[in-house]
């Protein structure tokens, strides 16, 4: 490394790998991972989301999970939480549907109404 600019470039790249440890993320995706969620394939849904987020290099998206959400009939359930916007809950997820949500909702900001269970403040 010979210049300060080079150092800063290395820093930007390194920060990508540490983004999980920061709290200032734009979008949080929460996958319901209760017993019924797992039984209905929540793990595959989660993997699909992680894969899609990773492929698109979305640095400000955090994928996390939670316990039973009480919506057993609509599992797997995924929440998309954006700062200052209503929480959008999607139900009956599959890996393919999940990928569509990443593309349309998280990247383009259009809620995928077909899969929405509820939107609340």
């Amino acid at each position, binding site marked *: 490394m010979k210049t*300060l600019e080079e150092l800063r470039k290395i820093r930007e790249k390194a920060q990508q790998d540490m983004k999980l440890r920061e709290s200032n993320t734009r979008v949080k995706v929460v996958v319901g991972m209760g017993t019924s969620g*797992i039984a209905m394939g929540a793990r595959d849904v989660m993997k699909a989301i992680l894969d899609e987020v990773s492929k698109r*290099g979305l640095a400000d998206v955090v*994928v996390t999970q*939670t316990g039973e959400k009480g919506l057993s009939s609509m599992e797997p359930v995924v929440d998309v939480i954006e700062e200052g916007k209503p929480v959008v809950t999607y139900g009956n997820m599959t890996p393919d549907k999940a990928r569509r949500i990443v593309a349309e909702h998280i990247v383009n900001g259009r809620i995928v109404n077909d899969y929405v269970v509820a939107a609340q403040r």
Partner: protein
Amino acid sequence: MSINRTDVLLCCGSGCVSAGSLKVKEKMVEQLAKHGLTDEINIIETGCMGPCDYGPVMMVYPEGVFYKKVTPEDVPELVEEHFVKGRPLHRLMIQEGNKVIANKEDIPFYKKQVKVALENCGYINPEKIEEYIAVGGYEALGVALTEKTPQDAIDVIKNSGLRGRGGGGFPTGLKWQFVHDAEGSPKYVVCNGDEGDPGAFMDRSLLEGDPHRVLEGMMLAGYATGASEGFFYIRAEYPLAIRRIRNAIKQAREYGLIGKNIMGTEFCFDAEVRTGAGAFVCGEETALIKSIEGRRGQPIPKPPFPANRGLRENPTLVNNVETLGNIPTIFRKGAEWFAGMGIETSRGTKVFALTGDVKNTGLVEVPMGITLRELIYDVGGGMADGKKFKAVQLGGPSGGCLTEQHLDCSIDYETLKNLGAMVGSGGVIVMADNNCMVNVAKFFLEFSMEESCGKCTPCRVGLKMMHTILDRICQGKGQEGDVEELERLGETIKQTSLCGLGQTAPNPVLSTLRYFRHEYEEHLEKKSCSTCTCLNLMHFEIDKEKCIGCSLCARKCPVSCITGSREEKFTIAQDPCVKCGNCFEVCPVKAVQKLPGMAELTAVNSSFSSLYE
């Protein structure tokens, strides 16, 4: 970009490692593989997070959940609950009353802390330079090299008010100026990592947890003073710290951050590690320099100061680990920001190693000027096991003991010095009322006595004389005038010793004489140790009201001095008793008591005595 969704920061500071964090990691790797989560969850070994008492501890991101006392047995449940099902495991989280504290920020232990030197400790992987760069590392160096003159750099540190964190408290900027102005070449920077106080582990944790920060601090110091070579003097007892610093130097070299023409400028710098053999006196700068040169680690008179004639007779800057650790942040955030913390003559923050009879033992960093009460009760969580506070020892073998009446005093260089203690390197030992202060003073004096290099007479002979007197006081053989003699010796040694070791070694005795004189008098006049610590000044007795005659004590007694029967109960013959304490430990009904004062010899004893004649 990796696919992982969770970062698990596992504390691998020395405290947590000895509590078993490496075994926890092993088990986690195994369990995560079992659930097919290996690619999603990243386990990162970090430096010390601070709350050593809770070890092994871990932080889970992005949720920011803090887990304590995680054992390998807890891991299957933890992985199943948190990493598979996404439910934080409340059982392993810190609880206050019935409330579970989820976030690190809400834990009382962290609330009053301000982390500067320890900013990244426990947050980044100390073995990856990329993580240090990600949190802003080496930016300060780059900016200083390209935009500041060495004099500008010195002025930044002067304006920040930073003072030496190793114990001396000398203004760092001024020291830099001396080395900068001194004639001679090449100049050297030495990082003093010869931390040797009993109960101190600040430098160790910083070297282990954030080695690149210390390296960057050293390079900034090198640039400002005109030095081109640096030495890390670290004691051999800190193998992990040595390994991490060596690794940091290697990585920095790979990135071109160390070597010739750094950042495309004229500045060239290289660093290497020298291991110390564990002599306490080598923490003294002139002895340390001799040790690096391969000579016997003994101090030499000052002046000339190392700033003018140090390593290989050339100008040398010696700075403590924590001092260097503060430097990069001061450059990044500005001198005003640093000077905004602390009080009048003591600016910034200080790292303390909190140990002893306090609830939250561990590594803490607080602003200067905080009171002892805040440090012990708010950060430390108060006394452990409901014990009663008696004294706090600051500054290790060079420091002194303070009492309850000093709890509201501010922690800064001047206040503590006036009270007879010192900030020192930052060891804080909290003591409950079962500690005998004469014995405590003896312990610290014994340490200094053994570590004295023997070069100058006051320290070599004087400390031994003081120790002899203390020893006889503890044995109940104290003589009239002993206390006065201790004071006379102590003052003489302080005034006439060559180096800091001798000049401060009498402090533990002098400070306890100042604040706990009554305990010395009790030992001397009443031949009694009220805390039952000094074995010759206490005795064991069996309370016949409580004794159930089980004979357990008699069977455990190594000298068979306990006799009796179920009907008559048991008695201890005082004369042959060696005070091993076995009977006290084993009694199921706590009938065996520790009593202060020498035992009165009974008729039973005399019959025993006759056996020996």
